[in-house]
């Protein structure tokens, strides 16, 4: 069986900021395009960006014998959400995730029951926040920023994972790509946020741990901040402007954004 956790992960990012990243990624470009003023609205991705998917590991450990399979499940779910967007064959994110779980079951010769699917849904609705998240969000809010979320999964204001984690009240709106039946990184999802917040795309700053999300935000005209959590790095290709902020934790990103408010 494929075991992603065997891949060597050295925590080179921990405690090292943009300097180390710049050495690896030629981020002189990024520095040249650093944000020169505070964005109007901060738009947060949630799963993996604010909330820790590793809480699902026990489920995957039990079903597949490998907790790290959660990364494969999430990665394939994103891949197939993109395929649905490209082919205009929208399916709700929960159905996609359940279908991919059963697909992985077939691939790895593991039987997936309805109870497993239900447990996955329940686990997703009660993911804990990454430790750097609650304080950072509160500080951004206190600094006067407007905070919203934009997720591929359904928005569940009042009863979702953000509520469980005690963070929901910090956001003025929770928005889901499902409303436009196209998933991130489709331009329509970021346009929906601009409409819902009564602002324009260049006023939005998308904040996520997923470079594919920020590719969409940047090409739509938003600014972007990459939370370079363990194992995360930007994709550097021609034609894509990298995120203006790249830092190993939301703490660092919040500090930079708060500085812009005071500038």
């Amino acid at each position: 069986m494929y075991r992603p956790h065997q891949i060597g992960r050295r925590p080179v990012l921990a405690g090292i900021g943009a300097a180390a990243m710049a050495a690896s990624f030629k981020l002189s470009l990024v520095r040249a395009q650093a944000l020169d003023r505070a964005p109007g609205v901060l738009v947060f991705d949630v799963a993996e960006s604010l909330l820790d998917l590793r809480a699902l590991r026990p489920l995957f450990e039990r079903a597949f014998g490998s907790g790290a399979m959660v990364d494969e499940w999430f990665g394939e779910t994103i891949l197939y959400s993109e395929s649905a967007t490209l082919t205009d064959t929208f399916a709700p994110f929960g159905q996609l995730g359940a279908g991919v779980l059963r697909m992985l079951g077939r691939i790895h010769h593991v039987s997936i029951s309805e109870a497993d699917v239900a447990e996955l849904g329940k686990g997703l609705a009660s993911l804990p926040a990454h430790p750097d998240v609650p304080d950072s969000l509160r500080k951004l809010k206190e600094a006067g920023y407007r905070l919203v979320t934009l997720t591929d999964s359904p928005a569940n204001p009042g009863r979702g994972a953000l509520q469980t984690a005690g963070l929901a009240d910090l956001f003025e709106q929770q928005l889901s790509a499902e409303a436009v039946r196209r998933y991130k990184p489709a331009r329509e999802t970021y346009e929906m946020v601009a409409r819902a917040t009564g602002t324009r795309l260049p006023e939005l700053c998308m904040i996520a741990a997923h470079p594919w999300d920020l590719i969409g935000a940047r090409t739509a005209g938003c600014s972007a901040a990459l939370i370079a959590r363990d194992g995360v790095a930007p994709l550097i290709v021609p034609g894509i402007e990298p995120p203006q902020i790249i830092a190993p934790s939301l703490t660092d990103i919040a500090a930079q954004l708060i500085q812009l408010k005071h500038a």
Partner: protein
Amino acid sequence: MPTVRNIVFDCNETILDLTTITPVFQRLFGAPGAMRLWFRELITYSQALTIADVYVPFTDIGGAVLEKIAAPRGVKITAADRQELTDRFATMPPYPDVPAALRRLKAAGFHLFTLTDNTAAISGRQLAHGGLVDLFDRRFSVDDTAKRHKPAPEAYAEVTRALGASPSHMCMVACHTWDTIGAQAAGWEAGLIRRVNNDVLDIAAQPQYVGTDLNAIADQIIARHGPG
């Protein structure tokens, strides 16, 4: 019943054995699983860039993804490493079931084509190396046509148009469900080879033909659309 005349094959992992590039990843990352991570991210980002309407050639996305997964793991990628990956990718051998099954489909009167995300140069090297190049009437690369990566509908529509065919004359054969989803969204039939690490996705459009190797798919296509 509409009759399929043109069978279009995906290349990487469908007819060519992707696992033969694993040693590069074993050497660089100390883990064979890194190959699967790299390939999944390659597809994830080829789709993300296509959704964002930015075309980047597949080989260049592959190189950028290699850097992306290497840097945070403290792995240094040299020009020689990138060249080794490109060379191994360009010389992946066909799976053992492929040559005879292709000849059987050809003998049954079908026209055979390829449609790949690879550039024509890489694809040409792959098929020449595998001794398969003469079996195909024509080879299509999204790099020459739609400049959008599969499963964008344009990638398939350009092939239909170039052949002066109607979608009902077309059948895609691939081992990736995202590819059969794209072909079926373009109005083609599709066959899925359940290669290792690949299987059907039950919430999406289901391929008309499913089998564990190309022989099984060829049998089903010939039974439905073949002569006699």
